[in-house]
């Protein structure tokens, strides 16, 4: 199994944003160990954990900077086949202390960063008819925590962006597979007591980033498995009768 995955991984070129620390760093390492060529984006210069990882400095909030960074990656590694949008900020700020500018700056990083990077990779993926985009999200939008207005709005919007991408591209380019992923690693944060180590989550994330089946397009993954939308009892019975029920996709 591992050998097969390595064979498939050898022709992949992945870009991971905010790859200088945490889950981004761990994911870059997991992918490079599977034989993927990896470029890591970061706002600050950083020393990659493995010298096969190409560090690229760019501010994902700035579309021009992102375009330049991806030109650089294309020149040095080739056209990216995998994009993991992992950049985020969590300002931990009371809404009364937010200014419109500070609020929108959170959106510009958490949502705008993903938009900028998608815009940079999509022409190549559209030309190839294939590609893989993983948006790192949370369920912060479902029940926003105090002090997390910008974060909750931007992460929720990113999940909508994923579905909008699938609505526009899914039928035309079934080979461009776009999913959400909640790694569940956020130990430093409040409210997530059961966060897992980034190294473990990165194993799952690497598997998810290498899954290319069009059937997973638009799905949300939580840690190591598909996060199925809750269905009512009636809905579940209907699924059974109409033959639509299926087991959630697992990443183990």
């Amino acid at each position, binding site marked *: 199994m591992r050998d097969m995955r390595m064979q498939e991984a050898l022709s992949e070129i992945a870009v991971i944003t905010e790859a200088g620390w945490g889950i981004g760093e761990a994911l870059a390492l997991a992918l490079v160990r599977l034989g993927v060529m990896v470029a890591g984006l970061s706002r600050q210069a950083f020393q990659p954990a493995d010298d096969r990882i190409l560090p690229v400095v760019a501010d994902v909030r700035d579309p021009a900077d992102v375009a330049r960074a991806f030109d650089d990656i294309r020149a040095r590694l080739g056209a990216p086949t995998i994009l993991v949008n992992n950049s985020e900020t969590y300002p931990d700020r009371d809404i009364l202390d937010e200014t419109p500018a500070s609020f929108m700056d959170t959106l510009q990083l958490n949502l705008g960063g993903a938009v900028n990077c998608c815009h940079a990779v999509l022409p190549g993926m559209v*030309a190839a008819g294939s590609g893989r985009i993983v948006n790192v999200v949370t369920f912060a939008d479902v029940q926003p925590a105090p002090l997390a207005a910008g974060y909750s709005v931007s992460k929720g919007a990113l999940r909508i962006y994923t579905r909008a991408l699938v609505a526009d591209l899914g039928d035309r380019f079934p080979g461009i597979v776009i999913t959400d992923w909640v790694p569940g690693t956020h130990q430093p944060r409040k409210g997530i007591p059961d966060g897992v180590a980034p190294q473990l989550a990165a194993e799952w994330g690497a598997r998810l980033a290498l899954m290319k089946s069009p059937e997973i397009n638009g799905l949300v993954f939580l840690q190591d498995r598909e996060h199925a939308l809750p269905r009512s009892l009636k809905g579940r019975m209907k699924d059974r009768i109409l033959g639509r029920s299926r087991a959630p996709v697992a990443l183990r």
Partner: protein
Amino acid sequence: MSALPRPHGQLSVAEAARHSWDVIVIGTGIGGGLAGRRLAEHGLAVLYVEKGPLGHRAESHFLRDDLSDYAARQSRGLWPTMMEATVDGGAAHRFFAPLGSGVGGSSVFYAAAAERPERHDLESTNEMPHPAGGWPVGYDAFRPYYDQAEELLSVRGDADPLSGLPPPGLAAPPLTPTEAALFRDLRQAGLHPYRAHEALRRVPGCSDCLGHKCPRPCKMDGRSAGVEPALQTGRAALLADCTVEELVEAAGRITSLRVRVAGAEHRLQGEIVVLAGGALHSPGLLLRSTGTHAAGCANSSGWVGRGLMFHLNEMVAVWPRRGSPAAGATRAVAFRDLYAHEGKRLGLVQSMGVAADAGRIADHLKGMIARSVLRRVPGLGKAATVFARASARLFGSATVFVAVIEDLAYPENRVRPHPEDPEVPQVDYRIPDELRARRSLFRRAMRRTLARHRILFLTFSPLLNFGHPCGTLRFGTDPATSVLDADCRAHDLDNLYVADASFFPSSMGVNPSLTIAANALRVADLVAVRLVREGRKTG
């Protein structure tokens, strides 16, 4: 995505308008695409004008009737509006017909069926008199163009043992064991199945692409076998996203095309105009071109838009005999045992190439329910799903066959542009009694032939194939009863030719694509010879 370079040969309207073209081809489907290619290979300067977009080459979407947004349809190369049809004088129905509008036209969505008609489709024979007294160009004159079309479309398959037609030049890939079992089953029933003729190059990674755009240089259609090789000659150019609104006529010639691009009007000029907008839209353009004649351009006969034919689709699910494996989804099989039956014109039967599983059968049942009076019965769609699941569980996967039952031309069956929206084709169609009778004959004959099989007819009422429109600019020798002459040139106009399915005076018992392609090559040769003869081009 604006960063992508414009592909070689694509022009802006300003660039196209500056040039005087030898030939302007309107429409890039299987007819326009191949005509333009042949014209460019003759050394002529060709401009393709396409209403829809170029599209992205790696796209692989299907036709969609669940997407109603105009721009979303347009960007996918789907005809952007619904069609309006009044069948048998009932209420007018609006629905998304299986029509393309982009480079390759509808052909990029076709199932790559490339079947030759038989002699009696084009001519009267002793056994089978022709309903229109025969085409003005006989079978033997068409034959070399069928050969050429098969070559350009990389048609592969086996010889049909009944018609005696020659096999395509290329062999089809070997049958799977389940397909071979299906062949054995059908032979045991006394049928003569053969490997259906398909226009697929079968490149590595080929996924058949039946009913959806092909992302590889594999399925041969108006784009891959027409526009793309034409652009490679360097003598053809493409103007996409350009709607032709009027053919401007003076002194028996088309002098210019009034077109619209991004809301602005422009004029294009060509020595010859080849119209290939498809049998629903080509007559629409002529009927809208009223600058000289109120009844429309090239319409002195009054036949423009009339003689509209579709095939009748008769679908039947056939389960394997006990002990045979289920062949399920295959496009591999065709047979002509009922092509002409008891002196009546029926047509080719072919496997549909779709998974005949529970979902597919349920879809058909639900579609049929939606089209019938049963649509008012609540919950019937769900019942159909449950029924289909139960039958799939009991009997395994069926193979769905579809008969292409020939439709004949009647002047009252017609298409016009909708008075309120010229992009909506307005179809008036009456299913003739003789067609209903031939349909019944087909069902009886199928039931008798497959008496030892479990079969299920999937069509309750006659189902028109809105993807096979033809006949709306029929060719003939009499200018009083036809729009085009034997060369597919308008009787009324010196420089207007037609290269789509509009020219058919009868619809034949096979899928139309190969005949459209063959005729497009023939028309292109006639145009090229003429331009050389008149000294406007050197050969």
